[in-house]
Structures are given as structure tokens and as C-alpha cells.
């Protein structure tokens, strides 16, 4: 494949409420795919380590948050092309998810979440008793 990667600026989130911390929050780029068993979400969150990830699923609202643990450095910037900050994005899922079996992993700054679909409510037969 000879496709070249293009530069895409990081999208900064415009927060509705005021944040307690004065640092930028970015919207991570994601891939969302689906197979028979599960939904798979992949998000780019460079600088976020394993323990900096927070995943929250309530009703059908999935929220991902990544915190960058930046160590303070005593260096003078010469040239700045990108800024660092946290990541935040939320989605409304159309499938019912089996919360107990959600798996998440982080590798090279990429978060991967596997959300298994809940077994569809089995059809029940209701017999009407004659009174």
C-alpha cells in the first residue's frame, strides 16, 4: 500500500461546562466496527498509559476519557506544532452491551475496547389460560 499519512490537526473539544483544570481536551480519532458478537472501538490517544484510561458505560452512553501523565520538563520549547492534553469522547450505542464482558486494552497510545453484545432477549411464549 502506498498511501501516505496526512497531517490532521488535533480536534480540541469545546466543553459546555468549565473545566477545573486549565488544559486542553482533545477529541480522539476513532474507528468503530461491528461483527456478530461485538462492537469494537479503537481510539488514538497518544501519551495515555494503561492507568490513564477511564471507560464509563451508563444506559447506552459510552464515555472514554484519557489522561496524559506528563512529567514536568525543564526544557525550553523551540518549536511547537502540537499541544498535549487529555482526551474525551462519548457515544450513544444502539446495541445492548453485556457490561460484564467488556474488554479494554492500551497499546502504543491506541485504546481498543471490545463491547460484546448482550444476548437478545429470547422470545417467550405466553399461554393464555382459559379461566
Amino acid at each position, binding site marked *: 500500500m502506498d498511501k501516505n499519512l496526512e497531517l490532521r490537526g488535533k480536534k480540541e473539544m469545546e466543553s459546555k461546562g468549565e473545566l477545573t483544570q486549565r488544559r486542553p481536551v482533545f477529541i480522539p*480519532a*476513532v474507528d468503530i466496527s461491528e461483527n*456478530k458478537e461485538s462492537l469494537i472501538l479503537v481510539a488514538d*490517544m*497518544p501519551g495515555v*498509559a494503561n492507568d490513564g484510561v477511564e471507560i464509563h458505560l451508563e444506559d447506552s452512553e459510552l464515555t472514554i476519557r484519557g489522561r496524559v501523565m506528563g512529567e514536568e520538563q525543564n*526544557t*525550553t520549547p523551540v518549536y*511547537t506544532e502540537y499541544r498535549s492534553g487529555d482526551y474525551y469522547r462519548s457515544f450513544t450505542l444502539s446495541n445492548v452491551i453485556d457490561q460484564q464482558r467488556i474488554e479494554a486494552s492500551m497499546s502504543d497510545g491506541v485504546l481498543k475496547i471490545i463491547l460484546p453484545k448482550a444476548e437478545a432477549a429470547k422470545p417467550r411464549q405466553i399461554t393464555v389460560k382459559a379461566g
Partner: protein
Amino acid sequence: MAILRWRDPFETRAFTELNRLQDEMNMLFDRFFGERAPVRNAGVFPAVNVAQDDDNLYITAELPGISGNDLDITVEEDTVLIKGERKAEPEGEDVSYHRRERDEGKFSRTIALPTRIVADGAVAETKDGILRLTLPKAEEVKPKKIEIKVG
């Protein structure tokens, strides 16, 4: 391949100096008020940040999903070439996509350094999708302290 110039040769010297002054003033204000730093755009992937201290130059780049094995870095005394490829995730069977925002592909970027460095001493590391290069400055460009003899 794009080569990034530190000082635009087409600009007059005075104007460049003025820009530099403006950048430095911005940086000073930013650090004081904790606000955003001025972000420039080279238009080439990946975006890099360059910083320095007395001994080293530091280049960082956000390269999510790219491990050290997918990177090829060449360091000379005044340029750094970063080449690599981001590979697509293997697709399983019966997969359909709802969203596809993450790109894959090759990249190659040359960065002209603001000072000369010792190429042999360069160190590159990747952590959580961030590449960090530490480039020791050449001896002649390091700041020197001059002792003043008291007569």
C-alpha cells in the same frame, strides 16, 4: 519529502527577528499565564515539538499505533529524518464499519535542526505512542560560562 526551515530565507532578516521576538514574547506570556503556546503547522505528518536545554535538543512526535519497529530514524549533524508506516488493524470476518477516522499509511519527514548535534549520541524511544528523540548538542554550540577573574 518536505524540508522544514527554521528561518524562512525569503523573509527579510528584520522581519524574521520580529517574528522570533513575537514568538518569544508569546511563550513568556503563555508560561506566565498558563495559556496555550503558539502552534505552528508544517503541513507534514507527523507534527513535532522541538525543545532544548543546555546539553540536548529534544524532538517529540505523537505516533499512536506505531511501534519502534515500524520507525526508521536517520540522524545527521543538522537534520533528522523520521520515516515510518502505520499499519491498518487486521479486519476480522463479517466486520462492518460505523466510523473510520484513523488513517493508515506511510510517512517521511525531514526536520532541519536549529543547532548542530552529535549524531552518534542520539537516543530514540517510544512510549505510549509518543516518540522522543534526545540529540546531544555539538560541543561548540553549548552555552559556555566564562569565569571572571577578580584582580
